[in-house]
């Protein structure tokens, strides 16, 4: 029990350290939103970029972002992320385009 308590404390400290003490480096231009995907456009299996349109849960506005990271692109390609999924999104505006910086399903379980 003692060891478990120690291990639990270590985990708690790790979680606290990872989640609260060293959050992701948020740049000033980053915009965050939580919304549902209404559209995904991807050129094909070898595409290196895609666009996703989300409906902001708060404002109801549609926001289209460009997704360039391979991890998310792979999830689009093999349908691990699909239309209807709720996403926690961070993006920044660059040359008039919304570039995704963080794209992750909100759903927990």
């Amino acid at each position, binding site marked *: 029990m003692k060891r478990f308590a120690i291990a639990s404390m270590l985990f708690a400290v790790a979680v606290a350290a990872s989640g609260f003490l060293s959050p992701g480096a948020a740049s000033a231009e980053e915009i965050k939103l939580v919304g549902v995907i209404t559209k995904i456009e991807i050129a094909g299996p070898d595409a290196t970029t895609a666009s996703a349109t989300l409906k902001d849960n708060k404002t109801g506005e549609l926001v289209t972002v460009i997704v360039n990271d391979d991890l998310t692109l792979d999830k689009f390609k093999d349908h691990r992320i699909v239309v209807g999924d709720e996403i926690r999104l961070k993006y920044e505006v660059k040359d008039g385009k919304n570039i995704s910086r963080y794209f992750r399903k909100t759903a927990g*379980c």
Partner: protein
Amino acid sequence: MNGKAAVLFTAFLMAALALPHGIFAADEDIQKKVDALSKEVQSLQQQVAQPKEGKKSISDWLMIGGDYRFRIDSLRGEVPNYLSFSDYMAWVMGGMVGSPAITPSSTVKNDTLYTNRFGLNITAKVMKDVTFHTRLLMYKEFGSQANDASRGTYFADRIGVFDGTLGHVPSDGGVAVDQVYMTINNIFNQPIWFSIGRRPSTGGIPTHLRQDNEKPGVSGVSGLLVDYAYDGLTLGYAPDIDGLPGAYAKFCYGRGYQHGFHSGQPGEVKNMDMMGFVVVPYDTDPLSIHLQVNHAMDIIDFPTIKDSSLGSLGPTTNLGDIDQFGIVVMSTLKKVGPGTLNMFASGAMDKTHPNDNHPTFNGMPLSNIGLMYTGTKESTTGNAIYLGARYDLPTKTMLGFEYNHGSKNWISFVPAADDMWTSKLGTRGDVYEVYVIQELRKIPIASYRAKTFVRLGYQYYDFEYTGSNNWVGGPVAISDVASNPQMLTPMKNAQDLYATLEVKF
């Protein structure tokens, strides 16, 4: 002049005072009209929005999926010479004259075990940030409403169906609720979730690979530690950390046995609970690291099984606590040759904390038996490793190999695993498995990820100690079972050649 000036000034002042008032009055009117119009527009928008919400397509909030599997197993195992508990007791009751009878070695087999398994998944987006999910399961043998053909006297997790295995081993053909839970997401507008119900605590990583299932995601547990249908809850947090993509952590709690009304008398069986922490510091396709620590409290001796191979069973006492720690490292590498390579390595250890209680079997107190020991009470430490790989070809052919080893004192909570003989990851010894999966190359219709496939596999168990998946009593080397009485039939080795035809949608 002064008089004229005074009149002019007064007139100017009055005009000046009157003019803004008029302007303001006009502004106020306009403002009122704008406000009224705004309200009207807002009202109209709401009226327009309301029917739109009402007309929402059912597919916007309700998802239905499922699976069906036909499976055939060809089972064969070697039983060594051994001393059975009943023969030992007969010898004792007979005055210990001569030597107790020894059951001779034998080969046991079931050439063709046919089973059907059906699953139905329903997920509803109930309201913003609230979801509901259930999974119903039916698993039966051909031609039977019992599990007589798959139930044995060999391993504790396969002597009958109990709450932790319901729907995961062949049973009576009834549809059981395997999972049912509700989840609240985005708590405090943060990536925090809370979920409660009958949990998705089966089929954890990396066991999903051999099942051709999707990776469980944040609901995942370590398959080497837990594969047990459980009622409980989860509180999770998925922070956004640039250097740690996909990171999350969660606290889990579950109740494995719940006692009824009680009056605090000595000897009453207490609740059996388990809690655990899962930390996934890094979760991407090329690298995923999963850490888990569990603490199981007041482990009961026997689960409730009305119709087991040993008769009607139920908890008679609590034997103590068990701690576990495990790690899973997974990697999926694309374009390795023509295909994709999935690899994993998992390791775990356990430690028992027995109390002074002993189980009672058929009214007989087993006074020298406790949690993972026989004879003198002792705390034991066990460990296990689980290694494997699956290579996915563009032809939708998947080739897999897995190996696992459990030490003498290895104990895990994995009775719901999809193995016929016994849960391979709870084995005290070595298990080898090879399989090939071939998905049909057809366009999915029911859902993006709908699939139909055949799977052909072979498992070989090489047991070193008795008591795989059993925490009652101490392990005995297979070579010593002729001199140590055995409640269950010991097995030296076992094989399972299996084939499935499955559809998932």
